[in-house]
């Protein structure tokens, strides 16, 4: 199956379907819940509290001279978005297998809309970050304007990997189990709990192999005016993100025609 102007025109034709899938997922998530939109904040916030108690106080991980809660929360917000979006887009085809057998639309709409849904929670949790900065008497700098922009490479990376996982999940059900397990490991391989300055120089290269590191670091540095923007690691991550997305997109498109037969 080709990736050409026709294909993109078709996706544009079906653009409203992105909206309806996102709308559906959001509505369904909050139906019959008591906390409603507050759930967007619960995961990063309470994780931050637990991390602060354990990693901040007990284990006493250095946090680049800023209060550990702020340090961890600034990374937890994008991390939460990434892990949730990766997981939901990776599993999205299996979750919508019924539709794959009954109606036609460009299949990429399914994992893509899953990745977009997370942005809403991301936005709500980001607002709380401002509150946290104020609580700890930290200055709000102009750098914060870059925060929403950084969501773009974050989404691209999550979707890129998500597309690969989704395509694989159609044929290999193992993916369903690999995802949560993989995400758990990734949490430790990414500078969320600890600062990247903790990694000794000789392991830095391996560390940079994780494209998420550069992006998370960038999120953090934007919040803290004292830190320099980690240009080198960010550009490396950006490059890797673009490559991963291209690979994921092409692979998804190539395997798309067999989904209804295999799922």
């Amino acid at each position, binding site marked *: 199956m080709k990736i050409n102007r026709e294909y993109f025109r078709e996706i544009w034709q079906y653009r*409203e*379907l992105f*909206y*309806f899938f996102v*709308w*559906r997922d959001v*509505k*369904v998530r909050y*139906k*019959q819940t008591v906390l409603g939109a507050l759930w967007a904040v619960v995961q990063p916030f309470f994780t931050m509290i637990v991390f602060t108690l354990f990693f901040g106080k007990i284990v006493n991980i250095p946090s680049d001279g800023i209060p550990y809660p702020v340090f961890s929360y600034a990374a937890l917000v994008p991390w939460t978005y990434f892990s949730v979006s990766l997981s939901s887009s990776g599993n999205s085809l299996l979750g919508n297998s019924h*539709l*794959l*057998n*009954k*109606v*036609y*639309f460009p299949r990429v709409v399914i994992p893509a809309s899953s990745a977009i849904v997370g942005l809403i929670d991301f936005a709500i949790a980001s607002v709380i970050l401002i509150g946290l900065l104020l609580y700890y008497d930290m200055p709000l700098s102009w750098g914060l304007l870059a925060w929403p922009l950084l969501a773009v490479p974050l989404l691209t990376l999550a979707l890129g990997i998500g597309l690969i996982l989704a395509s694989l999940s159609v*044929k*290999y*059900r*193992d993916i369903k189990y690999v995802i949560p397990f993989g995400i758990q490991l990734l949490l430790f391989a990414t500078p969320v709990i600890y600062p990247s300055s903790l990694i000794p120089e000789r392991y830095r290269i391996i560390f940079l192999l994780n494209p998420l590191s550069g992006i998370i670091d960038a999120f953090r540095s934007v919040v803290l005016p004292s830190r320099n923007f980690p240009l080198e690691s960010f550009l490396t991550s950006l490059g890797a993100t673009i490559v991963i997305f291209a690979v994921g997109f092409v692979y998804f498109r190539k395997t798309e*025609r067999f989904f*209804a*037969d*295999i799922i």
Partner: protein
Amino acid sequence: MGQVIALENISKKYTIQVGGGYDRFGEVVLNAVWNTLALRHKKEEIIWALKDVSFTVDQGEVLGIIGRNGSGKSTLLKILSRITYPTYGTMSLEGRIGSLLEVGTGFHEDLSGRENIFLSGSILGMKKKQIMAKMDAIIDYAEIERFIDTPIKRYSTGMKLRLGFAVAAHLDTDILLMDEVLAVGDAGFQRKCLDSMGDAGKSGRTIMFVSHNLAAVETLCSRVIWIDSGEVKEDGPPAEVIRSYIGIYGRRQVVGNCLDDMDRFKSVGTGEIRYTKIEFFETDGSPKHIIYTGDTLLVRLHFKAIAPVLRPNFQVKICTEMLTCIAIFSTKKAGIDTSMVAIGEGYVDLEIGSLTLVPGNYILDVTIVPHVGDHFELLYALDGGFEFSVETTARFFTGIEEKNTPSSLVFFPSRWKLEGMNLAPGQSA
């Protein structure tokens, strides 16, 4: 009138693994290892769901697709809907396509009726503006205005059906593909669906309709294609194709005064002798087209023997539609000696004196039984018999009996007399 759909040599292959549906990484690895070491021969079975299917459809045609379960009709629709792709062959489609392969596509239980209209409509290809414009019409059509804002998990099955079909009925694509959507639902719902389908057909849209409801197919379609085992078996006018299909798979009915060409019907038996044609006559020999309650009837059973048969027992059974046996006529019971039937064609006549069946539909089960009475080796039996009807008549001065009232099976000539009754003053006798 342009061609809007063109299929050429569409074929679809499915491979079935022996021993299971999907692979685990472990199995894949193991298989790879075994295969490399040539220790295991990987077994796969190939099924051709469709084989070289080719046909074209013009703008405005209403095409019916019939065939047994598993014949490939649904696969064909899936390919036309671009849900799956052919193994080889080409297909061209012009215009927007709307596919209705089930009722309620995309419905989510937790969302309300109204929300699901948006969701389903959008998934089926409608733009948001279109859905909003048609919202009231859809709710009206589904007749669930009171419940439109409650989650559909609270709906009855019938309500969900009506809602699903209401959305589908308002899809206005150039080409419409429908798969046995009418198979479910009560009579009222099916009636409504049929009417919508009829309207759609008249609107000039091109429609392809897969169904088992042969009556509906015959009424609605201008052309019928019969798919059998993945191939196009017949393609032509509805009446003809359906007739051939019924000939092999359906209930046969008497046409005019005879059931002809019986070889095309499914039958069981050892085959030395078989019925080829059955005719109904009046006792004077003229063809009998309509049977009334109480009629005298001559049934002529034409047969053909390809080997000499010793004393075959010709048997005719009259049963209700539910296959309750009402009467049996057989040469053996009547003490007739059919002696040795020679090779060739011939016929036997059965004269029924007074067929006092109440008006309705009945099944005539015709068999030829070997004289030794070995009922497990019938010489011939028409699978399922064939239908004939008995019509109402005022002959016995009892008034007109309504056809198909299940209250009784037979009728006896009879008369009521009121002489012993005292009438109240002022009434006429």
